[in-house]
């Protein structure tokens, strides 16, 4: 490093300011989750955490809030977890083979297939929600985990990231495999998948978060409280209704909603950072 240690005060000061900005909204949510509703409504709320964090969290977890008609947040967490895992695993499972096909073969319509996948990259579900819903209904996917996940598995992010990575696999490896008499299947299983481990781990993180954070689609495709995911649950808790807004439970739910994806990002940070940066570069 060029910089001498004495100049490290400024960077630390700026970084600490960054941490404060990042953590402050989460801290306030935590504090609100530790107070009672009257304490929150009696603005401005005290920033010293109160004693009710555990009881509020437990109430949200097992009883839900009035505005969600008592769907417990624990159930929402389960639904979100199933949805996020199914999306992450499903996307990897369909996009790795398709990227492999596009990169390691020459066949008619290859470019067309690639572009067909590619243009879906950023077509958000919001702009095609009504027709997609009708199709989901035609296929009897309403109120099922399949309905929650299948339409979201169809996106190009993972295919593109795998493609970028596959393009960097040295030709020598392919030639060596061919000389050894290995066919495309063997090469895929024995060489490409093991080499892609970091990318798979990184993608898992990205897609898990993508899945966890969905809400417009789940809102439409499920119509029973038992299928509510946590992000929709949050929306219902603050949405217009005829009951009071229970901020202490909403903030407890927010903390619960943030925890799993944050844990995934933090615990898998090493692969995530490496994979994300390398793949998208």
């Amino acid at each position, binding site marked *: 490093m060029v910089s001498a240690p004495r100049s490290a005060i400024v960077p630390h000061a700026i970084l600490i300011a960054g941490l404060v900005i990042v953590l402050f909204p989460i801290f306030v949510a935590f504090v609100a989750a530790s107070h009672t509703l009257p304490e929150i409504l009696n603005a401005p709320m005290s920033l010293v955490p109160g004693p009710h964090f555990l009881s509020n969290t437990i109430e949200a977890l097992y009883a839900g809030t*009035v505005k969600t008609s008592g769907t417990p947040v624990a159930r929402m967490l389960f639904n979100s977890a199933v949805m996020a895992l199914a999306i992450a695993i499903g996307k990897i499972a369909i996009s790795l083979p398709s990227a492999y096909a596009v990169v390691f073969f020459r066949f008619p319509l290859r470019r067309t297939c690639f572009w067909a996948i590619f243009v879906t990259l950023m077509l958000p579900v919001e702009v095609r929600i009504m027709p997609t819903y*009708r199709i989901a209904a035609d296929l009897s996917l309403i109120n099922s985990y399949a309905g929650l996940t299948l339409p979201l598995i169809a996106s190009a992010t993972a295919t593109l990231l795998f493609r970028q990575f596959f393009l960097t696999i040295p030709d020598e490896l392919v030639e060596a495999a061919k000389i050894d008499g290995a066919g495309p299947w063997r090469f895929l299983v024995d060489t490409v998948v093991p080499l892609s481990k970091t990318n798979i781990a990184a993608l898992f993180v990205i897609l898990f978060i993508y899945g966890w954070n969905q809400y417009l689609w789940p809102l439409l495709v499920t119509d029973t409280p038992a299928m509510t995911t946590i992000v929709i649950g949050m929306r219902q808790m603050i949405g217009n209704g005829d009951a009071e807004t229970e901020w202490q439970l909403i903030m407890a739910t927010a903390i619960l909603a943030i925890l799993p994806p944050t844990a995934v990002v933090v615990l898998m940070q090493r692969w995530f950072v490496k994979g994300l940066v390398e793949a998208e570069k």
Partner: protein
Amino acid sequence: MRSTMLAAVMAAVFMAMAGPTEAQPIELQWWHAMTAVNGDRINQIAADFNKSQSEYKVVPVFKGSYAETMTAAIAAYRAGHAPAIVQIYDVGTATMMAAKGAIKPVYQLMADAGETFDPNSYLPAVTGYYSTSDGKLLSLPFNSSTAVVYWNKDDFKKAGLDPNKPPKTWPETFALAKKLRAGGVKCGFTTAWVFWTQIANFSAWHNISMGTLDNGIGGPGAVLEMNNPRVVRHVANLAKAEKDGSFSYAGRSTEPESSFLNGDCGMIQDSSAAYGLFKKGLKSQFGVTELPYYPDVKGAPQNSIIGGASLWVMGGKSAAEYKGVAKFFTYLSSIPVQVKWHEDTGYLPITKAAYAATKASGFYDKNPGTEVALLQLTHKPPTANSRGYRFGNMVQISDIIAEDLESAFAGKESAKAAMDDAIRRGNALLRQFQANTQ
């Protein structure tokens, strides 16, 4: 580890894909937008009905906000997956009505099913809103309320005002709001549901037309006229009060309630159904009174109008399902169910008998203020201006009007310019609705 996780997911997916299994009684889905106490009551009503007989099973499903519930029902209808019963908010009435074939009118449903059904047993102030111009009931009123004024007695005391003397007129309201501010209360008054309280109920209460063809009840060719001098003057007064801080706008729907709940605002104009919320959440004493009026407007006060939602029956179901729905509606209209609904939720009863029974039980004496809504609704026999309103695309129109009111309150536009703009955009939507549904 990884494989067990995967197995768990796969198991969950397959379990979900297997779907629901056999059900003996005919299942009737009831989609609604009610939460909290109201949601609990809905579940209880359905459970009680299901226990009372074995042929039908009503399944209440919470679908989110009113807008989300309506959209979901329409999307479901288009996908051939509609529920039997859906709760639709007042502003969606014209859209549902225009959808001939997609809905089953209640009067027809009851006749087909051979259920005894006497339209005269219902409260006209409530059913009028959901009937054709010749009085045929299209949807069953379910949760109805009207706009009233709540005032915080402790705030009044704090500002040195008589806590038992709420304002009667608008000039008094503005004057009291100023005094509240001067006496150290953060805001004089606020209003929830700004379009519904300040335009729709304001117009009915002053017997002013909101649009031609009897506020649109007469047909889809109606033209909005909410830019009339009386409404404009009122909006200008509100904007003036917003500027000096005696009125404090805090959002289009229920957001302002938190400013009343924490004692910041001395008065709020809100739905009569918010009573329970304030009773539970407000630490101070509070009272309920009728909406204020301008004494110089001839005929005011007239009567206020309802808001809320009604139950629509979707089209394309079997005769057996309709029979079940009709039976359920009869059950829903019965006196004990109605009385309990009214007393627990603060929504209005829909039958005259339920109103009388509640009164006889002494409920209104024990809970002062709870009858204000009914008295206000039945203040005078409704006129063409005060029966209700029914405009197509009303969801957007009410948002447009709220948007323009926001511009006027923020001082960005004059009251006149704001209302002219609202009417121009609103009429364009009306014409679009007319073209699309013909």
